[in-house]
């Protein structure tokens, strides 16, 4: 393919808008939401575009209502999405638990901001626990995807819909203000479905079949225990089949950065600088935060001298890193709660770990 043709296909867009383009490409025609910074580009884009392609945009009175609009449309068998930021995602936790219990697919985007509480609108990765461990009640899991570029905002949005349908479960995209607000060119690769979108369980009226229900209440005998084990097997299957990560210069690396999303993006610059100085640095970048690439991490831990975990919080993924490896003495942590680490800072840390002067 010649350069001109390749250039022709690239689109220059905000990350938040690229999510919308990906969702629409994946067949999402329903979006519900409630305003909150820094993700308002998403409802604004959807409110302008969905009505022109026969879709539905509806602004809810709260995120509590939003997630239940989502529940109803998902129960109707349609692909549906919402987006919000920390405080709004907190309000959706009840609905997410019900959806996991009722086995309903949907895509929920968290363009996270600083917390706890009202916090601030600075970029942050403080919602890792809420997303990965799942903040609703009862114990459930969902695939969590962490894009680090506008290209991934687009492609992981499409993947999130497929994972949600494959497992009949909500799927989350965990971004932050940087990857949401930044613009960069991306290629609109066509959507290629990897799952069937037939939903015989959907509530469409019981014409020609017995009535059916979408529910999470199981009161009889040990029905809820049976249901829990069924869900658990689903989560195990996610761990077997859905681990995704980027290996960034790990071959021969002595220092392995472990970072996701914007922290990983910034780390790439620092690693480029370090490698030019002959420092053998690389990075394991989890693309799926759940399932976490724990086995891959343990393999890398055996080979390297240092695992440098970098997060825009005070250490959340750090716990999953520790749970994945026995080499705890190799783990170092660089945390920047509610702020982005600069390439200079990370570069300085890499130099220090490599025994170079600052």
């Amino acid at each position, binding site marked *: 393919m010649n350069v001109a043709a390749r250039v022709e296909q690239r689109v220059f867009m905000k990350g938040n808008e690229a999510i919308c383009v990906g969702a629409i490409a994946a067949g999402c025609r329903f979006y519900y939401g409630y305003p909150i910074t820094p993700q308002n580009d998403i409802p604004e884009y959807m409110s302008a575009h969905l009505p022109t392609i026969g879709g539905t945009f509806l602004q809810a009175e709260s995120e509590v209502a939003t997630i239940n609009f989502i529940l109803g449309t998902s129960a109707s068998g349609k692909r549906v999405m919402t987006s919000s930021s920390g405080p709004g995602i907190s309000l959706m936790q009840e609905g997410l638990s019900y959806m996991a219990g009722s086995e309903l697919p949907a895509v929920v985007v968290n363009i996270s901001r600083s917390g706890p509480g009202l916090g601030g609108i600075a970029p942050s990765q403080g919602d890792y626990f809420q997303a990965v461990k799942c903040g609703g009640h009862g114990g459930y899991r969902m695939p969590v995807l962490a894009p680090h570029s506008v290209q991934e905002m687009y492609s992981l949005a499409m993947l999130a819909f497929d994972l949600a349908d494959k497992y009949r479960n909500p799927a989350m995209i965990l971004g932050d203000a940087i990857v949401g607000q930044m*613009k960069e060119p991306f290629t609109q690769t066509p959507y290629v479905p990897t799952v069937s979108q037939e939903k015989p369980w959907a509530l469409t009226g019981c014409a020609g079949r017995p009535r059916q229900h979408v529910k999470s209440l199981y009161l009889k005998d040990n029905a809820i225990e049976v249901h829990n084990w069924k869900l658990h097997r689903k989560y195990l299957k996610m761990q077997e089949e859905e681990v995704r990560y980027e290996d960034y210069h790990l071959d021969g690396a002595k220092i392995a950065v472990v970072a996701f999303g914007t922290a990983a993006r910034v780390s790439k610059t620092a690693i480029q600088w370090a490698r030019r100085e002959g420092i053998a640095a690389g990075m394991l970048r989890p693309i799926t935060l759940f399932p976490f690439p724990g086995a891959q991490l343990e393999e890398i831990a055996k080979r390297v001298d240092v695992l440098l975990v970098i997060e825009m919080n005070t250490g959340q993924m750090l716990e999953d890193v520790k749970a994945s490896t026995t080499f705890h003495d190799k783990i170092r942590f660089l945390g920047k709660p509610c702020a982005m680490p600069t390439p200079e800072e990370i570069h300085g840390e890499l130099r220090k770990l490599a025994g170079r002067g600052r």
Partner: protein
Amino acid sequence: MTTDVIMAGFGGQGILMIGNLLSIAAMEEGRHVTYFPAYGVEMRGGTANCTVVLSDEEIGSPVVGRPRACVVMNGPSLDRYLPAIREGGDLVINRSLVDPAKVGRKDLRLLAIPANDIAREVVGSQQLASMVALGAYVQRTGAVRMQTLFDCLPKVISKKYEKFIPLNVNALKEGESFARNHA
């Protein structure tokens, strides 16, 4: 080659527009580029800024702690970004609103351009001051080709205002020629 620039000024000066134009031009030249604007509450302080990173290889951080260049369109932005610019970096200031005496640093390649005056008196519209400054920045740094900027104007100017494209071309050219004459 990798370069980056922070552009800053008042809201309404067209800062985000010149950032977008520079980014799209870089994309059209087949390069990697990221554009990151100020967002949220920062927009309410009456200031606007954006960071553009251009590179021939994959770009890591879209946000830059120590920029290689700054285009400063008003006084408060000079106070904020002057200390951050890398040694030997390029600083383009809008002399119509920013006092060059306040720059102080001798380790920068300074270009003080009366962007408002040129826009108003030569181009014919003071609203194009930022476009004049962009022309000067691009001439000074060679970040992209001038012709690519001209070609990309229709992508950042809405149909409603497309009759102003020639005026924007003039603004870029005036900035370019000022920079060439003050090299």
